[in-house]
């Protein structure tokens, strides 16, 4: 593999990482947004405050992921976004509502607050559902046919459940007292749909996609890949176990969140392995869709300098806002 062939692979990896970062980071934001309808008053404010310093930067990973798709694989960008035109638009409306509701709810007149909270919850729900739908459509390569639409619809319902588990895990980590106790309960509720969802996707995807079937169920690949599903089961089990321990509200408060993140990472790894090197299954590969090498190279240089910097200050921010969430004194 020479340099020009390697560049698209590098960008495929970068894009995958950015998308994964988005799903995990904004995933917990969206999950908290979805859970907002189960809380009132002070608890609500605290839940919003727990994601306050982060949601904006978290959403930027989506811009980066789509940006890399746009910049590195412009043809695939046009293809994917044209096929997903309506769900993308609905997701964007959802993200708009969620984002502005965040800004408005604390500043508008008190009597308008419930309205903005509704926008917050509805926006989070719309965005999460549409992301699930798009994932389902994407995995099947936008295949026509009712069975594929049902597949996408099921994922559209399950991804929000996964986000809720992630969000509940976040709240267990970031809150205390009664709200934390309720977050544990919410996490228990969301665990089963999440586990069923992962199982369903694992069973159905090879059936929906011939490519995935070949990838996973041929020897010796089957055994080489076994660590991925095994580790996923382990992580899911650990989350469930932790939710029943009393220490989950103390020393182990990080475990449900970290375990759920691990499940997301493993699923992403499995998905990447299933689809590589296709950007759209059976239709276009990363090499067919890649930009000119000279343009890729300059972006790569920029990424090499900036992404580590971004990671450094993101870590810095998480350290600054480490610990239990507090209501902002103003702002």
């Amino acid at each position, binding site marked *: 593999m020479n340099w020009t062939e390697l560049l698209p692979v590098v960008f495929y990896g970068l894009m995958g990482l950015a998308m994964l970062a988005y799903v995990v980071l904004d995933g917990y934001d969206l999950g908290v947004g979805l859970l907002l309808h189960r809380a009132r008053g002070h608890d609500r404010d605290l839940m919003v405050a727990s994601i306050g310093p982060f949601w904006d930067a978290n959403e930027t990973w989506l811009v*980066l992921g*789509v940006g*890399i798709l746009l*910049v590195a694989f412009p043809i695939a960008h046009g293809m994917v976004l044209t096929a997903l035109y309506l769900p993308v638009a609905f997701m964007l409306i959802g993200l708009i509502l969620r984002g502005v509701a965040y800004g408005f709810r604390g500043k508008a007149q008190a009597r308008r607050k419930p309205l903005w909270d509704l926008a917050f919850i509805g926006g989070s729900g719309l965005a999460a559902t549409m992301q699930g739908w798009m994932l389902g459509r994407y995995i099947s390569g936008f295949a026509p046919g009712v069975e594929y639409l049902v597949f996408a619809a099921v994922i559209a319902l399950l991804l929000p459940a996964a986000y809720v588990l992630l969000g509940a895990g976040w709240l267990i980590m970031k809150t205390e007292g009664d709200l934390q106790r309720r977050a544990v309960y919410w996490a228990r509720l969301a665990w089963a749909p999440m586990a069923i969802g992962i199982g369903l996707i694992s069973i159905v995807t090879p059936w929906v996609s011939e490519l995935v079937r070949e990838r996973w169920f041929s020897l010796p690949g089957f055994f080489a890949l076994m660590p991925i599903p095994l580790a996923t089961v382990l992580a899911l089990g650990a989350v469930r176990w932790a939710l029943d321990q009393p220490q989950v509200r103390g020393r182990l408060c990080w475990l449900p969140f970290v375990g759920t993140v691990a499940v997301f990472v493993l699923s992403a790894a499995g998905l990447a392995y299933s689809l590589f090197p296709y950007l759209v299954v059976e239709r276009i590969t990363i090499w067919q869709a890649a*930009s*000119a090498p000279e343009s890729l190279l300059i972006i790569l240089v920029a990424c090499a300098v900036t992404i580590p910097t971004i990671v450094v200050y993101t870590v810095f*921010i998480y350290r600054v*806002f480490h610990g239990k969430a507090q209501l902002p004194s103003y*702002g």
Partner: protein
Amino acid sequence: MDAILLARMQFAANITFHILFPTITIALGWALLFMRWRWLRTQELGWLAAYRFWTKIFALCFALGVVSGVVMSFQFGTNWPGFMERLGNIAGPLLGFEILTAFFLEATFLAIMLYGHGRVSERVHMIATALVAIGTTMSAFWILALNSWMHTPAGYEIRDGVFFARDWSEIIFNSSFPYRLSHMLLASGLTAAFLIAGVSACQVLRGRANVSTPLMLRFGLTLGAILIPLQILAGDLHGLNSFANQPAKVAAMEGIWETQRGAPLILFAIPDEAQRTNHFELSIPYGASLILTHEWYGEVRGLNEFKGSHPPVAPVFFAFRIMIGTGLLMLLASWVGLWLYRRRGWVAERLPRPLLGGLALMSFSGWVATVAGWYVTEIGRQPYMVQGLLRVDELASNVPAAHIGLTLALYVTVYLALLVAFVRVVIYLAGKPADLPAAPAPGAPLQITARIAA
């Protein structure tokens, strides 16, 4: 309606809504840094109250800018798949630099700015405020580099209809970029200046002035009075650059149909593209030639030289006059306002009410001028996407028209609702008492322990 027209309307609606908020935040970020610094230096409570109030507005504008910006990053692909296929090698890296150097920076440090109180030192908080301001400005830098390149392309080569980068410094520092960047940054400064002055005037009128109001009125008026002459100069230089590179745009701005020497400056007219003439023309002889060529008999090329490849005349012509008119009004308001304010000993309540009312009405005049200016330059580039090289109608979208129409209606509804909500919240917040620590008891030594972000 056909898909491409709807796609253009949707993109225009989105970008028009989006630009309103960065136009405020770019300059307001620096203004906040200034207020913060003044508070630390002078310990005058007015600066603290001002910082806190404008931080809230900043946060709101920032959120509105972010969410509409995310929509834009998708619309490059959904509305113009052809755009990235042809221009991806040039537009891609510039957009990428914007995301990597600006978006993460501003989004991350905004968190410290808004919620870092008590969690970081004063110094780190000040640095974070500065980084947010730098981030918003960097964002403008990259996006204007790309936009300017589309007006005055350089440093590229075309192979099989696809653009390739040849020289990045030529691409970034293309000939219209310095003018457009300064014009936009000054526009942002003026937008913030008149918003600050207008909101303060509004507070005085409503009897809701607080400790920050007189300071902010002075700050807004001073900033406006300093920036508006600079803006007129930058605008003039930008116009000369367009005259050299995009004569058809300038002909539409001036409403000149026939190429002529000693062209008049048309103050008002109703351009009629069907008959290719102006109605109700009011003009100053030789004016256009004098402004554009600095000679009485300088040649100005008319629209008829560019038949079939010049922009629609009326929108460019009128948008240009709206921008200029707003600019002149800004000049008048800020200079008269500042002069009177000084004569009245900086006591806002002694200012004539019509002046305060006028300033209050001009709170969002920066938006009017900025959007009108963008319409001049962007509609003025039509029918080209990249001036002289690539026409907009070559970039078809394959999305069904009905889908674009549906989402257009959705976006417009949401945006209008948000715009109303934003203006109402600004008015509401402006009427609230200042957000300050409790005043010390009379007679007690004045000891202010409140940090900037308590």
